[in-house]
């Protein structure tokens, strides 16, 4: 049942990699697209099987693997991971859809994408710390290749930077996992067998910091984010969608699942600092995005800002905030995917990403009217305009966090305002204004280039108008997680927050 999500894409990837050379790229693309569609449907089928009222792990699978190491093949899905899985298979489908018809070296490209998709699904499903780590590290090499073969000008540099940062992140996570399991004297890495209650507080905090730093590189949080602008900007549009939409969620998912749920006591101690950290990340991302002259860089920095809210919500650890955090992960994934896709289309048609060179794309005849309209929609969704999914999730986050951390929450609200500022700058410089008559002979936008953005736009509006569909899956699970965390000293936090 769940294993299909992991192994079907990986087996297909191996199959695509050994196809004969003379098959044209668009045929391979079609095959990969069909398969990722099947996986998406399989995922929806699992969603139907999913019992919303059960807060624990469901549809579990277990195979003993390596008793010596305490490694077992244990899978399960709960309210947080079910949404992440859907997001993963949806964005894989979108990424394959939005890849060009004439991709160079198509066999390698599509097999790597499918391979990564299977690996990410495995990481979201894994109920064993070592198994999670194995799947987590599985993304390293394929993504390195995806960035450095099909990328922009500085792709080699960006790829290596991504590789090293991610490898360091993996080392930190592995060290913390070994610490958690070994210092508690457990012999199995199974998630339900691990408990940190027995450890001293100082040790708990040390291990938790290791986990937060490890996943913080992946999310990324300021100041661990410096790989992100390079990697996102140099990657081609489909790869950027996967990087920002899926891989960043691995980081936040890791913090919720292995930081918060495993270290309830230590979590409540360092939560105030994390809230500040999240707020700083959000403000930083927004302010730096204002200064950018390249639309892809803007979208990349917007991603840093939006990830800050998730950290704030996780720090607040009220039931509402946590539902908001998961909703924000999904929203951010969808919104980032639409923005990166549109930016990719604009770059392909106009041949530039510079704010100073783009102009007047709204022009109905010679511009790119539909693409511009969708860009406006995506930017508004990202900036938190009501009626779209971005607003819903951010509002739940703020509502849930304000009672605990008023000051950081206010800072994040300010960051939302700044988000609106730079997106307005972006729209103003690209969509509005007048076309340059000498340069404006843009190629036609094919219908298959519009489709992914249209699908995502419909999804954004639908989840914004009908938010139940976004939050109903996670509520029991998040409530159960929060119940284990000691209540924060609500009266003291504002002073702590101010002092720090």
């Amino acid at each position: 049942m769940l294993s299909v999500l992991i192994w079907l894409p990986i087996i297909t990837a191996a199959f695509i990699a050994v196809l004969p050379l003379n098959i044209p790229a668009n045929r391979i693309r079609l095959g990969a697209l069909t398969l990722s569609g099947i996986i998406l449907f399989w995922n929806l089928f699992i969603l139907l099987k999913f019992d919303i009222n059960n807060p624990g792990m469901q549809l579990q699978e277990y195979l003993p693997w390596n008793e010596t190491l305490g490694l077992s093949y244990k899978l399960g899905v709960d309210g947080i991971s079910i949404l992440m899985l859907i997001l993963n298979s949806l964005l894989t489908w979108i990424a394959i859809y939005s890849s060009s018809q004439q991709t160079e070296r198509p066999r390698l490209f599509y097999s790597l994408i499918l391979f990564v998709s299977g690996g990410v699904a495995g990481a979201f499903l894994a109920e064993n710390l070592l198994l999670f780590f194995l799947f987590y590290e599985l993304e390293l090499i394929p993504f390195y290749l995806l960035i450095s073969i099909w990328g922009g000008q500085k792709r080699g540099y960006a790829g290596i930077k991504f590789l090293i940062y991610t490898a360091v992140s993996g080392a930190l996570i592995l060290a913390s996992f070994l610490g958690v399991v070994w210092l508690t004297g457990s012999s199995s890495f199974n998630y339900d067998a691990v408990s940190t209650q027995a450890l001293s507080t100082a040790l708990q905090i040390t291990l938790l910091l290791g986990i937060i730093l490890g996943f913080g590189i992946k999310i990324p949080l300021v100041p661990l984010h410096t790989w992100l602008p390079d990697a996102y900007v140099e990657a081609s549009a489909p790869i950027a969608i996967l990087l920002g939409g899926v891989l960043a969620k691995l980081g936040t998912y890791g913090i919720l699942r292995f930081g918060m749920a495993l270290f309830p006591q230590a979590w409540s101690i360092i939560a105030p600092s994390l809230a500040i950290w999240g707020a700083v990340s959000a403000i930083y991302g927004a302010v730096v995005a204002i200064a950018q002259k390249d639309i892809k860089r803007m979208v990349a920095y917007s991603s840093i800002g939006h990830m800050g809210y998730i950290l704030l919500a996780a720090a607040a650890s009220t039931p509402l905030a946590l539902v908001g955090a998961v909703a924000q992960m999904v929203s951010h994934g969808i919104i980032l995917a639409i923005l990166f896709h549109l930016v990719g289309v604009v770059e392909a048609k106009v041949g530039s990403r510079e704010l100073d060179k783009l102009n007047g794309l709204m022009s109905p005849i010679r511009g790119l009217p539909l693409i511009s309209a969708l860009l406006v929609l995506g930017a508004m969704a990202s900036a938190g305009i009501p009626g779209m999914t971005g607003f819903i999730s951010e509002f739940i986050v703020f509502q849930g966090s304000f009672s605990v951390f008023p000051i950081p929450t206010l800072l994040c609200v300010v960051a939302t305002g700044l988000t609106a500022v730079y997106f307005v700058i972006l729209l103003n410089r690209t969509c509005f204004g007048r076309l340059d008559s000498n340069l404006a002979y843009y190629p036609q936008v094919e219908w298959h280039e519009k489709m992914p953005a249209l699908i995502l736009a419909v999804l954004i509006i639908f989840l914004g108008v009908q938010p139940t569909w976004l939050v109903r899956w996670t509520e029991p699970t998040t409530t159960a997680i929060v119940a284990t965390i000691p209540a924060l000293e609500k009266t003291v936090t504002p002073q702590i927050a101010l002092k720090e």
Partner: protein
Amino acid sequence: MDFANLASQLNAGTILPEGIVILTLLGVLIVDLILGRTSSRWIGYLAIAGLLTSIVALYFQWDATNPISFSGEFNSDDLSIVFRGIIALSAVVTILMSIRYVEQSGTALAEFIAILLTATLGGMFLSGASELVMIFISLETLSISSYLLTGYTKRDPRSNEAALKYLLIGASSTAVFLYGVSLLYGLSGGQTELGAIANGIANANLGQSLGLVIALVFVIAGIGFKISAAPFHQWTPDVYEGAPTPVIAFLSVGSKAAGFALAIRLLTTAFPLVANEWKFVFTALAVLSMVLGNVVALAQTSMKRMLAYSSIAQAGFVMIGLIAGTEAGYASMIFYLLVYLFMNLCGFTCIILFSLRTGTDQIAEYSGLYQKDPLLTLGLSISLLSLGGIPPLAGFFGKIYLFWAGWQAGLYGLVLLGLVTTVVSIYYYIRVVKMMVVKEPQEMSDVVKNYPAVRWNLPGFRPLQVGLIVTLIATSIAGILSNPLFTLANNSVANTAILQAATVVSTQASAVNTEHPEGL
């Protein structure tokens, strides 16, 4: 002493595997004398058949009730069997590689195989030797054959230089080792058998004397040379670059495994009284090897030199298991050496293939290879990524087990350093993958542009292909299907009497260590 008594004293059945290797060795030599160069087409396969028979014979020795033979000179316990198997296997793959390589260099294949089998023999005897003279003789057999193999392509000045360096350093480090061994003989009141030495020293109350420490340091100098641990590593890069590539493949796996077998046996049985001291020394060696090996490998341009520094670094990782000194520690060493055999030999097979087809092994010349030779690209990429410890390949599980055993024994600093240097190592391993896979067709090197059409039916290429595919498959799935290998490694430690006494001591020590973090 009647004959039956003598036979039970000798217990010569325990060295049947080595006996088979000796017969093969003589067979190869005699066939070469009688038939001359015409036999070179099948003489390699004769040697491989002999080695495989020897491995089968090893299998039947497993869990023997009476492993001690030759009145205590040779111990055929499960630990020695695993190491002897590793050394024999590495010789098998080395012969597969060398059939074409040696032929192309215009030298005699049978002589090469004969010397290689002698080195194998030395290594196998070293794995089970439990008496000072026996240790020294088998160590010398291994070393002298290695010098000959290193200088085998005698028309190449680099090979000559490598042989000279290796000989001078090797002979002097053996002399240092011998001096340490002679001190042991004197300190223990004339005992040469390892277990008796420990008792003799304990009885003479020399347990913490300066003499014992000096003996220990001198012995470690000899061992460190064999496993190429920094700071006894200086020969490695130069020898790896100059020697024929199949020889390097053997030295990096077979000779290293023999060194580790010697280390485990000698240190645990002869030096139990100074366990903390040798663990301290090896900690220093491991730290140096991991840092130096991985950092200097970043700056290499030649493939063989890069793998030389990489093998120094890998020795540093394996030492974590030795320092842990627990059952899991020794088992993780054995497991890692097993998978290291597959990874390294796969990598070296690809390097030999490339240099046979193009005549060079500079890293920059590999660029754009994926178009011309996908199988070689796949093999080299998988083996290098596995050396870097990328899941789900064999090297990842090997490293995880090492770190896990180290962490369990309380070696937090070493494990963290291992993790950090692993990250560094990924960078230089991936550089080669980048050259082969990422480079565009217009960035091809000249060598790759003129790459000959890949043909496997040329003389001597079939064995190379077989070796490549077998090691490649093993590298890919030995991690996922690691349970049998884990069981093998764990059983070989659990069934070995000499390690039981040693691990009891060290588990007590590690229990003290694990109590320490509670007081943080």
